[in-house]
């Protein structure tokens, strides 16, 4: 089945794990892509090749392997700059993932710029990674957290942001570009304009955006942007913090150690240039290099095609789900307004039980709070089921998911 302008069949062949049989020889139907995506052979081979042929520590030594490794590593920074339209490669910092990126900002920028009585605004649909670091900060310095609530369509009520900003105390607005539970695409442009007018800084958690749509950081013009490689075909252990140079220059370092220093003396130390000032210690070299293969892979497909495929699949799934009795769907019902994520509950059956039962058919969805307990509280549920799609997901797989709900109905005698 070819559902978009690229060949789904060819793509699926690039992902070895999609050939896996699980639970008594069932075909794997992997619909947990918002948690982490699968990896094409290109990424897997890039990592192996690095270890088999080039492996060395980077930046300091002059020998052949060190030069090859350093060059390959630094080239990834340029590739990311191009992929996201970042004008200055020195603004790109390698971290472990979105979580570390946000914590870096919360420690190095937050501790300096957020004071007693100040406000950090976040939203009801944030991932814990974009709530807890601000709670820790607020607790430490005596600041306050304020939320932007969501409406019944799972969209942010932006008037509340106006109210918060009107206090004049907002130092930072931290918001996800795409909700990992509802799929809602945040109107970041409007938020950024509002924040600029009010003099508040803005951090965008792009963990669910960069993998699924074209993101142009230069034209966004926010202050901080964070995302994870493992949610976009890349290896685990690689994430990116992008931040405006004017902030990075003023910020204190986060971790102290090798590579981030210029000169260390017994009692004082000076910092290295950007981006190294924020990259202490041996980085995750092999996986950063593997991540480059993921960016190449997505670039070849084209992010517009990635998005088009997800819209098509989501529309298809939503249409089919309409006919299933007892299904509650959370978030936008318009596929244009959301990425390829559908959260739902099925009658009174707990999502954990749904997931366990359909797992027998090889269907891998996520059930639980999705690291978004504030949102669960808002939706007044303990948990939801979440099916999330990616470039290799087919309509047939969506069918298997929906048919599997019949087994749930049978087991629970619905």
């Amino acid at each position, binding site marked *: 089945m070819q559902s978009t302008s690229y060949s789904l069949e060819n793509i699926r062949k690039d992902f070895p794990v999609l050939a896996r049989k699980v639970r008594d020889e069932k075909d794997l139907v992997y619909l947990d892509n918002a948690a982490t995506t699968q990896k094409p052979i290109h990424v897997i081979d890039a990592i192996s090749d690095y270890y088999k042929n080039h492996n060395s520590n980077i930046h300091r030594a002059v020998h052949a392997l060190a030069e090859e490794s350093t060059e390959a590593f630094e080239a990834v920074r340029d590739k990311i700059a191009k992929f996201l339209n970042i004008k200055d490669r020195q603004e790109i910092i390698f971290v472990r993932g979105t979580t570390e990126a946000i914590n870096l900002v919360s420690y190095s920028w937050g501790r300096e710029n957020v004071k007693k009585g100040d406000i950090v605004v976040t939203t009801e649909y944030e991932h814990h990674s974009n709530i807890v670091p601000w709670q820790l900060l607020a607790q430490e310095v005596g600041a306050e957290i304020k939320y932007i609530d969501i409406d019944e369509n799972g969209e942010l009520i932006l008037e509340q942001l106006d109210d918060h900003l009107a206090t004049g105390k907002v130092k930072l607005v931290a918001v996800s570009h795409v909700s990992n539970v509802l799929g809602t695409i945040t109107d970041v442009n409007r938020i950024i304009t509002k924040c600029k007018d009010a003099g508040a800084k803005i951090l965008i958690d792009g963990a669910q955006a960069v993998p699924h749509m074209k993101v142009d950081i230069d034209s966004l013009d926010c202050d901080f942007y964070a995302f994870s490689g493992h949610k976009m075909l890349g290896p685990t252990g690689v994430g990116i913090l992008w931040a405006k140079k004017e902030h990075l220059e003023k910020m204190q370092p986060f971790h102290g150690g090798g590579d981030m220093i210029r000169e260390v003396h017994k009692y004082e130390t000076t910092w290295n240039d950007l981006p190294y000032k924020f990259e202490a210690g041996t980085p995750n070299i092999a996986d950063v290099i593997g991540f480059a293969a993921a960016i190449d892979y997505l670039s070849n497909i084209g992010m517009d095609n990635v998005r088009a495929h997800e819209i098509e699949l989501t529309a298809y799934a939503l249409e089919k789900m309409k006919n299933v009795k007892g299904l509650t769907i959370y978030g936008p019902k318009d596929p244009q307004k959301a990425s390829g994520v559908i959260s739902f509950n099925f009658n009174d059956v707990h999502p954990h*039980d749904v997931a*366990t*039962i359909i797992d027998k058919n090889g269907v891998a969805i996520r059930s639980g709070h999705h690291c978004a*307990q504030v949102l*669960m509280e808002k939706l007044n549920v*303990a948990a939801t089921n979440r099916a999330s799609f990616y470039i290799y997901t087919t309509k047939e797989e969506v069918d298997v998911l929906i048919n599997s709900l019949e*087994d749930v109905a049978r*087991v*629970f*005698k619905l």
Partner: protein
Amino acid sequence: MSADPIYTEMIIEYSRNPSNFGKIDEPHIHRHDSNPLCGDSIDLYINIDENKVSNVKFDGKGCAICMACTSVLTEMIQGKTLDEVKNFQKDELLGELGLEHLIKTSPVRIKCALLSLKALKHGIYTFFVEKMNDTESAGNLKEEASSLY
């Protein structure tokens, strides 16, 4: 479809109609616990009279496994002495519902099954230490609770 090794009639029944569901006002033991991985969340309430469990209730939200196991747990400890409760083992609980296999087959779902036992052990520990001032009887119940997952 062959008989499901987890979702037996009994478990489905308990999940729909949990035993001892409710709350005790000012209980001798109250322990809230939750599963950070999935969000199951329960409150366990126990009254102790003459060293025995005289009343036990729970409320909260959880999956069928969690609800069934908590129900059975409350049934099994009703009327038991503190010492018996203290030594109550997970195998007894799992055995009652035919879920012993979860230990091996599902590292994730076993946590749903044992959440109430964890709350129980912690609750008894706190009772010994705080209400009875008896750290000796409390023993290593706290470590035992922690090691349940």
